[in-house]
């Protein structure tokens, strides 16, 4: 009885298991509405398009689990695409050097976010909100308001192309493979000492510090990982659809939603990176479902918002209970 209850609690309790249950429910509804969605080609197209958000969610997970936020990722994705278009300007030969520049830029932005938060003790959502505005303004200043230049064909390969003629699957997108690689790297990282220190830091930074953990270092590293993930996401999104002024807009909101949906606790210390990535898949599946149901476009943000609040409230309710129990004298 107790065991059955705890199994149910794992699935429905608002923690890590819930997101997989939610994902399954959404896929089931999508299947009911349109069985064709589960044909290989459609599914691969879905995963290709979901990959950037999943990678972004892995990056954001590191920051959130260590007790911070990174609101600058959407602006960073946009900035990276605009930088790529401007620097490459259609020249194939520049593709690889420019990707190098983008990676350095992503690391630099993460480093600044991390150092301002840990050394200057500015709260991370102020730091990264500031970074969001700085990036947004700097890019506008640099480009004169709107993106210029164009991406090369080879730059677009990772986000748009794939391995053709795979048996059963047809085209396997590079984006999917990159997503799996990033996911595996993230899971591995969380199993190292770094991952354990990161969680301990998010749970109770004072205790972690007193037990000898380099709290500031891991937190800064988390921001750098987030900056890197935004860069990879930028390469994939730019590759997927090309350059436009709106790329990345509002993605910080979607990705934090995804991480929270994955049962990762805002404030840090709890949650799994794989669940955060599943949260991102869930969000993308939800968007697909909205489309399949032909939900009026203007209603979608409201439904999305309601689901987010419900998910967070559900998770909070579960965490509230044990606290209540300890407070009651037995």
């Amino acid at each position: 009885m107790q065991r059955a209850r705890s199994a149910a609690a794992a699935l429905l309790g608002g923690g890590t298991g819930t997101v997989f249950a939610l994902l399954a429910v959404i896929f089931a509804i999508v299947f009911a509405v349109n069985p064709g969605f589960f044909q290989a080609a459609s599914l691969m197209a879905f995963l290709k398009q979901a990959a950037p958000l999943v990678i972004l969610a892995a990056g954001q997970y590191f920051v959130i689990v260590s007790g911070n936020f990174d609101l600058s990722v959407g602006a960073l994705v946009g900035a990276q695409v605009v930088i790529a278009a401007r620097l490459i300007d259609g020249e194939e030969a520049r593709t690889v050097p420019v990707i190098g520049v983008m990676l350095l830029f992503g690391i630099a932005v993460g480093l600044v976010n991390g150092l301002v938060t840990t050394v200057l003790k500015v709260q991370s959502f102020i730091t990264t909100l500031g970074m969001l505005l700085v990036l947004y303004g700097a890019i506008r200043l640099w480009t004169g308001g709107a993106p210029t230049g164009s991406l090369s064909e080879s730059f677009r390969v990772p986000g748009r192309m794939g391995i053709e003629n795979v048996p059963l699957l047809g085209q396997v997108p590079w984006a999917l493979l990159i997503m799996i690689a990033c996911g595996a790297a993230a899971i591995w990282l969380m199993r190292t000492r770094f991952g354990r220190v990161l969680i301990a830091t998010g749970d109770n930074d004072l205790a972690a510090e007193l037990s000898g953990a380099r709290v500031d270092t891991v937190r800064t590293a988390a921001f750098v990982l987030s900056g890197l993930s935004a860069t990879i996401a930028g390469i994939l999104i730019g590759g997927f659809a090309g350059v436009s002024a709106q790329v990345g807009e509002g993605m910080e909101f979607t990705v934090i939603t995804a991480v929270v949906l994955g049962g990762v606790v805002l404030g840090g210390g709890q949650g799994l990176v794989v669940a955060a990535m599943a949260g991102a898949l869930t969000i993308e599946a939800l968007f697909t479902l909205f489309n399949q149901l032909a939900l009026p476009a203007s209603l979608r943000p409201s439904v999305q918002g309601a689901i987010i609040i419900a998910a967070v409230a559900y998770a909070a309710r579960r965490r509230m209970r044990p606290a209540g129990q300890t407070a009651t004298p037995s």
Partner: protein
Amino acid sequence: MNTTRLAVASAAALGLLLATACTTDEIDDPDTQETAAGEEGGDDWFVQADYERQLEQREIEPEGDPAEPWLQAIDPDWVDTSEFALEGGDATVCFSNASVSNPWRVTGWITMQQQVEVLQDQGLIGEFRSSDAADDDDQQISDIQAFVDSGDCDAIIISPSTTATLTPAVQAACDSGAPVIVFDRGVNTDCAVTFIHPIGGYAYGADGAEFLVDNLEPGSTVLALRILPGVDVLEHRWAAAQEIFGDSDLEILGDEFTGGDAAEIKNIVTQYLQRGEVDGIWMDAGDGAVAGIEAFEDAGKPYPVMVGEDELSFMRKWDETGMTAIAPVYSNFQWRTPVLAATMILSGEQVPSEWVLPQEPITEADLDEYLERNADMPSLHYAKFGGEDLPGFPDAWRDR
């Protein structure tokens, strides 16, 4: 204790997230942001008389030299401006710009600056002051007020960010005594000496919709992609398209908001293609049209009949693929007209009170001509920018 803190942190974070999400949206509104929030549904935005007038204006031969469409006017009602005539030239002209937040406005802004340089060399304009409100109404109101307060402006040009909110500021500019020129989006006062704009949204939307009706078999499916709701010029485009689709045998699969984001456009088109055939695409603005076309390529489907815009990335894709398409035009050359109008007014020449500029779509027949004229131009440039004869051409537009 810990849980309460977490709950508070979560709530605060979510609030903040929502707030930032809203701000970024607001900053980044594309093209043509106007009167306050309207729900979707073209009907609220549809004014039969305006629709009919704009469709009629497409047929009217504009007055003036066809080689200089920015000085042409459709059905003009000339007004006397001798009261504003200024002795001696070297006028100070002030320009309050709503924003340069999209490629269309960037292109136009370059054209305007190049035109100003010519007028400065001719000694007609002395100082040219400009301010950029970055799509912020409050900022633009204070920009205009600053021009008025300075007392230096011999003419004030305004490209309003929104209609209703900017109306009092435009009125205040008129009250200062300087001639006021409004262009692109309108305001709810006719105190300006001239209001310069192309024919308008209904004509734009109708050009594309009629093309789809003419080029698709009855019963064909059409997907409509829109940037965002509640912007009057964009709503008019969609309202006109709905009017025309309503009288046709085309099946409209849906109308989706994309925010002008290429990735979103590609997602949406890909999903529609998974559900069934899409024979035609109607767009309320061509931004991201190429991403929509790529969705067909990546899904291995035949090209749709396409409504784009005179943005070069789309026109080049159109040329490469040989698809059936049309590029409706929201005449970018209108950015030249206001500064020319300012010098005309300051020398006491007549100008039309409502200066309706021609607005003609680019079709298969003149695609090559416009591609050739813009061969050196970057992909986010608008073919009908009308600056080929200015001395800064082509470098000023190429090296932006």
